[in-house]
């Protein structure tokens, strides 16, 4: 049985906050003073295409440097940290297009995500000391359990590149969970997934996240998924936060309806 993703990080709830973050690419202002915070549980970040959602994730994970503002991971300013160090500090993310190691098996891809749990050391590992062998078995069991939660145990030995896009996305989510991070950023995890893959993903996330302190932020255009899964939702438009609150509040916010949802969504038409 795998540990809950956030178990290894103690009882401190995961949180992430963007404080007055701005990003400009030349004359194009992508984020304009974004202030936003999420804590434990499922959170949604929505908005029209080009609103700056993925840029928020890129700033948080260290792929894009903001022109001003800061990102706090579990309360700590991570401005000076590289992408690797942010990952090791407890931040995991996925991408719109999965970034798996296509030549490796599905299980091996998830196993790479267990890097932070690695304690035995390389020398013990190379010399196959008992402690290293035991640790390797435990990490493999944990990875396999994660795959099982997403209905992928049968594909564990397959080359990741041979899977459908939907299954690759599930593997990427499993790999992100294998890092036992406190904050998980999922960039359009349901895009391109079949109904059954989406269902497998939601079920797996529910099992692995509920009851833990993990903070999950989901960027997604599937609004039904966001509204049913998330307890807190923020809306970006033209690089600015125009609303944040519970799904019910978002659905009734006129600014959100005008900018993104359209009147039909709010009325259920």
């Amino acid at each position, binding site marked *: 049985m795998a540990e809950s993703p956030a178990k290894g990080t103690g009882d401190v709830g995961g949180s992430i906050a963007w404080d007055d973050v701005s990003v400009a690419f030349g004359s194009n202002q992508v984020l304009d003073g974004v202030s936003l915070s999420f804590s434990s549980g499922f959170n949604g970040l929505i908005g029209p295409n080009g609103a700056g959602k993925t840029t928020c994730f890129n700033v948080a994970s260290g792929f894009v440097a903001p022109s001003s503002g800061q990102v706090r991971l579990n309360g700590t300013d991570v401005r000076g940290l590289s992408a690797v160090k942010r990952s090791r500090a407890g931040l995991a993310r996925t991408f719109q297009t999965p970034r798996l190691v296509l030549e490796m098996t599905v299980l091996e891809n998830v196993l790479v995500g267990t890097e932070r749990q690695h304690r035995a050391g390389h020398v013990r590992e*190379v010399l196959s000391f008992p402690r290293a062998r035991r640790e390797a078995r435990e990490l493999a069991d944990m990875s396999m359990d994660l795959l099982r939660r997403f209905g992928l145990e049968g594909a564990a030995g397959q080359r990741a590149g041979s899977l459908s896009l939907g299954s690759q996305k599930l593997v990427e989510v499993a790999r992100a969970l*294998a890092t036992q991070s406190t904050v998980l950023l999922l960039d359009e995890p349901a895009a391109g997934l079949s109904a059954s893959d989406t269902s497998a993903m939601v079920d797996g996330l529910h099992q692995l996240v509920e009851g833990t302190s993990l903070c999950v932020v989901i960027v997604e255009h599937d609004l039904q998924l966001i509204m049913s899964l998330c307890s807190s939702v923020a809306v970006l438009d033209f690089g600015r936060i125009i609303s944040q609150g519970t799904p019910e509040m978002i659905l009734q916010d006129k600014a959100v309806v005008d900018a993104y949802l359209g009147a039909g969504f709010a009325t259920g038409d």
Partner: protein
Amino acid sequence: MLQYIINGLQSGSWYSLLAVSIVIVMKASDVPNFAVANMGLVGAFLAYSFVSAHLPFGVAVVLGLLGAALFGVIIDRAVIQRLGDKGHFPLLLMTIGISLSLAAALELIWGTNSLSLNAPWSNKTVHLAGQIINWDGIVTIATGLVIAIAITWFFHTTAGVRMRAVAENRSAARLVGVRISRVSGLAWGIGTAVAALAMILQTESSVLSYTAGDALLVPAFVAATAAGFTSPVGAYVAGLVIGVLENLTGGYISTALQSVVALVVVVLILLLRPSGFTRTALARREV
């Protein structure tokens, strides 16, 4: 015929081990290590010095391999990682520079005379199928096979999986917190130790000098090329094939053509399958 094949498997094992070393380093650092033979010679010269200090041969070899591994880690930390973000060409030039510098350093420290690194089995023979076989050959072939199996096993351990992840998709590995610098250091350490083993086996059956690695470099790179610089098993098998082909060519056609075999093989590979013949290399090409 059998004699030529066994001799070919022996020299092929030297090529194979060096090719495996090239593949290991390539996987972690994405650079073809042209210093592989001379870095391996560091381990061979260290082993020679320990034998000269009256240590048992086995102990001397182990210390030589450990010294070589440490040297590999130092080269990685001091040079390779500092150039890591400068692209392939500076790194490639750096490995050539390391090779030339090492040749000069080895000449300066151990001199220009050919030295003898005698193993307990040196000059001993065994009769096999009507042929007289040197124990050198048997030990070399067996060692090469054991190392090939061990390296293949290693790439399926968690450390090996991380190394493959770095090789195939560096940004994906970095994304989940894999420390590239550690993986790189591990690869250079193991790779240099394997290269040292190749050079110890080669110089133990002939002579040890600062130029001992020169003749092995081209066939080793051809073997690594055949494996698409990705598959240790492919590199091992290709090294053996080149060794056997060289010896059959030398035996049945002309010894003058022996050194041309590797070059013919590399031309054929580049014409027919530039990405190599192994499954991994082919799969990578399909992506």
